[in-house]
């Protein structure tokens, strides 16, 4: 088994008891998926078309929490996808959307029980969702930068 399959069962969870609603997760997610990666200032100062945050922050004071794709074992979005763009990588277990094939029909939004797929109109018409920052091969930006450790990665069986 390689490292990737070790990642197969990873999920990001939130601890709502300590989520402080600062939304830094969104900020860092945006940057991490922009061309400037970790450079927040450039991401926000130079780009007019920025990626959407791939985390959903729900807030109703005093409760708040972040929520992102669960990369389900039985992904509803993948089963519902009409083009086959949404797929679960058999190696990594990560559910990703092939933006080359996504035509923005939003069936995945209809199907995702967590409500964590977004319509991205700015950058083509595609469904945007958490990819566990797999490209950076690092700890996901939201988890890494949560100042209160309200997000954590857990391997679930």
């Amino acid at each position, binding site marked *: 088994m390689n490292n990737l399959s070790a990642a197969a069962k990873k999920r990001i969870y939130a601890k709502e008891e*300590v989520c402080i*609603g600062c*939304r*830094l997760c969104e900020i860092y997610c945006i940057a991490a998926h922009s061309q400037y990666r970790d450079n927040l200032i450039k991401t926000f100062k130079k780009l007019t078309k920025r990626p959407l945050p791939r985390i959903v922050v729900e807030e109703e004071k005093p409760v708040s929490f972040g929520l992102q794709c669960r990369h389900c074992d039985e992904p509803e979005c993948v089963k519902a996808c009409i083009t086959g763009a949404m797929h679960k990588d058999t190696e990594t277990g990560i559910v990703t959307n092939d933006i080359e094939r996504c035509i923005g029909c939003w069936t995945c939004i209809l199907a995702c029980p967590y409500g964590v797929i977004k319509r991205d109109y700015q950058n083509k018409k595609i469904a945007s969702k958490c990819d566990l920052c797999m490209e950076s091969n690092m700890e996901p930006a939201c988890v890494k930068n949560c100042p209160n450790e309200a997000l954590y990665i857990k391997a679930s069986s």
Partner: protein
Amino acid sequence: MSFSLLTPEFIVERNDERCIRCQVCVRQCANLVHMYDQEEDRIVADDSKCVNCHRCVALCPTRALTIRRNPLEFKENANWTTSAIREIYKQAETGGILLTGMGNDRPYPVYWDHMLLNASQVTNPSIDPLREPMELKTMLGRKPEVLNVEDGKVKEKLPPQLKLEIPVMFSAMSFGSISFNTCQALAMAASEAGVMYNTGEGGLHKDLRKYGKNTIVQVASGRFGVDVDYLQAGAAIEIKIGQGAKPGIGGHLPGEKVMAEISQTRMIPIGSDAISPAPHHDIYSIEDLRQLIYSLKEATDYQKPVSVKIAAVHNVAAICSGIARAGADIIAIDGFRGGTGAAPLRIRDNVGIPIEFALAAVDTRLREEGIRNQVSLVCAGGIRNSADIIKAIALGADAVYIGQAALIAIGCHMCQKCYTGKCNWGIATQDPNLVKRLNPEIAARRLINLLHAWTHEMKEMLGGMGINAIESLKGNRLMLRGIGLTSRELDILGIKAAGE
């Protein structure tokens, strides 16, 4: 009155080249300093509300923020300083006593910084704590003068003792003055580090009872949350007579902070003010204290050491002699730099004496009377680092309490606004939006780290002195030399001057 003579104390500086309008500052400031102006697409600040707690600065992801002291000055005046003038403005506007939080910040001498430690050179070896055992384990409680041993067995059991892995405990801080999460962090850290935390006078929340082995339950003049289960729940009981930040003054938790959990824990109705009287109304003299000490011992079947905490006041040595003779197992002395969640400014800044003198005087007095071993001495109030602890123990303390240092470890920035209940760091607040900012797990980890670091440092210092067990440092004043002290001060501290 809307017009105020008080100008902003601080200025919020925002580097617009770095500000990305993420509005974290807006969301994080409980004092509502920052606002997003949609029309201008920029974030603006109301400086007058800023307390310089650094919450926004710390969370700003692009480091766009700095807080500066407002450079605005009054005409130079050695007598009428800025604070002297501002305090008058404040009182003239409000008609109230000035409140403050945390410990005395006036420039009185810090005697810890006037004592230097010894180290071994040539004539005896220093000990390397990385290679040799180095013992910091400490037992607090009454010790008999003589141990009766018969046939290699102890004839009488020791009176109950608190066992500490290191001679450091977390000071009394009540649930109410600090948040539940803070209490939990202290409890978790104490538990993990093998030391004690202290409930303060706010009772013991049901969810924290599991940390009982590392809990000192406090009985103060308000008797909040005190019943026999509470007394049984901890490892020791502490009678709080006074507090270094406000000797002679009671406490007051305003009713708006008394929400469901606090109400339950303190056993008082929701929304009612929790008032701790200045004295215990059943203790008007030393013999009354003895009665309370023994009532508590009776209630707990003589299984728990009883501590008595007092503020360091002028006559502290004689008072402690009386407390020892009244049956206390531990005496905690809180110096005039001790912290608080709320105290009248004038009291905090002008009442009491330095813990260094109080400790030296008490230790000397108890030894003169031959009763030093009957009681353990814990000193509190402004302990800032491991060297302070080592010096305190060399002066004669068995252990120390840390309060402010512990809070700083978990994020306190010493803005001294605890009494407002708007602590942006989730420490001194009951606002659920703010409380959750203190993640107990992170805070506990930071506390454990701090204790860990201090443990290493203490071991290094001990090893340098050629000592490998903390008890050999206790009262070992030869390990201290004074610097920049008058001979009177040296006498009181019972130490020699550097070079002697």
